[in-house]
């Protein structure tokens, strides 16, 4: 299969369509707009629907409606827009609707800027809306993974009847790289719970309201059991030079790409440094990190944020080893050399 040089944002749309998604509801925002633009172009060609909604709030609710109908549906935005979608995402989780949300993160807080940041970790991984819920969160670091993880997100969403998120930074969205596109999903499973506009509908209801405390508790226990299953089965990560590492760098998204280079540089200098890159941010690879903590001397978490993922690293390490932190914000991105220098400082100390 030939490769195509393509932007991450566009690879998301092609991946989504290959995964059987035919409904896209979105709203423009830099640096995610190419997703809506590509969806506007390709969805109709694939026999699907693209609609530019009046707001992020509307677009997630349109997806709520479409997903209620049992089809694969999606929306995409960037940080401020994701904040607006949180109400709808909570309803989707409460109503157990499978759908995919793409977040191409940018600088915040407030209007911030349009440069890449990783400042939405908390609002996506920890559940940014109200109530007890989790989202399945995947963090690509290449255009290829923008396609592959979008496809996976649709699978996971259906499997767990829960919203799944592709959480990427502005760089991964804007970057062009060669992508090999897989074969399309040819047939989608019927969803017996969905509204189909046919005679079975009279027994079907999509709802997140449970007035009875006992019933709502039961519903929450059911959700938690589902999340526990995901924590067992859906942890994904990648490691590089981690086997004999004394210090493990931890980073996701574009940061992990920078960390590969840093590891190469440091290894060239004879330093035993490796990389752990979470691919699923939720469920977070906490067991693996705890395992690493048994053999390595220290961790260094690197983020394009004030330190959001580092909390999960610290929880996983649970005080067994020092967890250092290095970050840039506002669209500033560390160079591999900058990381290497910081690592050397830690190792010397």
């Amino acid at each position, binding site marked *: 299969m*030939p*490769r*195509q*040089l393509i932007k991450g944002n566009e690879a998301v749309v*092609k991946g989504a369509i*290959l995964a059987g998604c*035919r409904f896209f*509801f979105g709203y423009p925002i830099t640096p995610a707009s190419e997703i809506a633009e590509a969806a506007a172009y390709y969805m109709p*060609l*694939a*026999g699907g629907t693209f*609609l530019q*909604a*009046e*707001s992020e*709030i*509307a*677009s997630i*609710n*349109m997806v*709520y*409606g*479409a997903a*209620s*109908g049992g089809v694969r*549906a999606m929306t995409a935005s960037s940080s401020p827009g994701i904040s607006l979608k949180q109400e*709808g995402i909570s*309803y989707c989780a409460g*109503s157990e609707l499978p759908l995919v949300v793409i977040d191409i993160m940018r600088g915040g807080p407030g209007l911030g800027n*349009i440069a890449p940041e990783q400042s939405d970790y908390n609002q996506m991984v920890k559940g940014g809306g109200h109530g007890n819920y989790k989202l399945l969160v995947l963090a690509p670091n290449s255009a290829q993974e923008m396609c592959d993880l979008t496809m996976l997100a649709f699978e996971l969403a259906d499997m767990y009847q829960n919203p799944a998120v592709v959480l990427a930074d*502005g*760089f991964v969205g*804007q*970057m*062009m*790289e*060669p992508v090999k596109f897989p074969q*399309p999903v*040819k*047939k989608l499973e019927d969803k017996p719970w969905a*509204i*189909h*506009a*046919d*005679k079975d*509908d*009279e027994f079907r*209801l*999509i*709802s997140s*309201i449970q*007035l*009875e405390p006992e019933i709502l508790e039961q519903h929450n226990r059911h959700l938690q059991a589902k999340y526990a299953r995901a924590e067992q089965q859906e942890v994904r990560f990648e490691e590089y030079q981690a086997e004999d590492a004394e210090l493990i760098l931890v980073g996701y998204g*574009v940061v992990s*790409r*920078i960390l590969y280079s840093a590891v*190469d540089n440091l290894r060239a200098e004879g330093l035993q440094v490796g990389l752990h890159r979470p691919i699923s941010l939720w469920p977070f690879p906490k067991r693996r990190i705890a395992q690493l903590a048994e053999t390595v001397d220290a961790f260094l978490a690197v983020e394009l944020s004030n330190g959001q993922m580092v909390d999960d690293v610290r929880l996983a390490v649970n005080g067994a080893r020092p967890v250092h932190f290095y970050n840039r914000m506002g669209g500033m991105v560390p*160079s*591999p*050399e900058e990381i290497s220098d910081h690592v050397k400082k830690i190792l010397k100390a």
Partner: protein
Amino acid sequence: MSDKKLGKAGCFYDIYERSATANKDVTHYCPGCGHGVLHKLIAEAIDDFGIREKTILISPVGCSVFAYYYFRVGNIQCAHGRAPAVATGIKRVYPQSIVISYQGDGDLAAIGGNNILQAANRGENITVFFVNNAIYGMTGGQMAPTTLIGQKTTTTPRGRSQINEGYPMKIAELFSALEAPVYIERVALTDPKNTNKVRRAVRKALKTQMENKGFSLVEVLSACPSGWKMSSVQAKEWIDEAMVKHFPLGVFKDRTEEVQPSEAKRHVFNADDLHKKLDIPQNIQASREIRRTASSNIGQNARIIIAGFGGQGILLLGVGLAQAGMQAGYQVSWIPSYGPEMRGGTANCHVNLSDKRIGSPIVSKPDVLIVMNLPSLDKFEDCVQAGGLIVYDTSLIKKSPRRMDVSALGIPATEIADELGNARVANMVMLGALIAETSIIDKEVVFDALPDFIKRKNLISLNKQAIEKGIEFADSLVSVA
């Protein structure tokens, strides 16, 4: 229903199993509430039209959030105010279905104002029943956008004042100013005569959707005896006496006669020929492995920054390099600076061509710097790797790079391009100079790649000429040297 019997509609469940109340054979509505009557009229119409199986009812927040307890149809309960968006979503999936958005005044006119406005403006083929009872019933009698001036509510304890809260919102009038809606009427659930008008409006609105004519909205003035603290009979009188004065009844828009009925096409999932539809390359592209000469210091892992003014084709130059690099068998990446600065300010992009997996796609210490204006030279010159290369456009940069530890190639790219008849292909002149100087990619591979990044076919030969000129110029310098 037999025309000789008026009784409970088949569209209602016999027993309301989903109800959280003890008595599952009565509604949760207060005595005298208008919702129940409107429910009955809708249920009767659904039965009479034989559309129960394809009807989807959306219940957002409000007293009618529990409408799904009662209607034997497909039910979706959703967030406050968002019913029109949810309705849009499901209607796009099932265009042949009948989608009803059942909303109260707080839901439709306050929190969901934009959602309903935009759904109406798009002319979504849905039916909206808007229950205006001038108050928030569910939360205990607070002010609604439709609360009358002087009307006391728990949040307007001294009565609504136009100075503080503004005037009651006239939804039917407001929405009839839009072009798309097909049918908008305001009716009142009061005496039998008015109630019969409600019945007709409900049926007309559903019929409009069944014929795929478009958006309809029926505003129903409806009693909330509990919220108004009146008896049921007084409440109806108050609608006639007070509400109708501010909210006159009548048809505000009716294009049902002029709009042609159409047939809704069912969405059919089809995954045939998807790669073709998605412009995914079908065949292996002409890929020429090139012999990379050792004629320059640029090895097999080139980290490149390209910079200049927005409009000089800086990003396209990078894309071309990445595209050709990919076809030449390299691992490649391209990252732009993006956003407002693209439009008239400075632009830059980072390209990696490598034999190995590319780590950081962001280039902090370039092996090659290609610059097409002075600010870019000033900005990036210092970060070029020792032994690296700077290619710069001497048409626009009237000074030489300061660095003595890098090679520099100056080329009057913009002037050369201008001579070719279009200064905008200066970027390709630069590309030609780069590949000649570094042998990083064979020119035939670049030519093969041209159609992949120059979308306008009629410009391909001009771009090719520009690349040739760049190569010629760079080669001439080598031969002189």
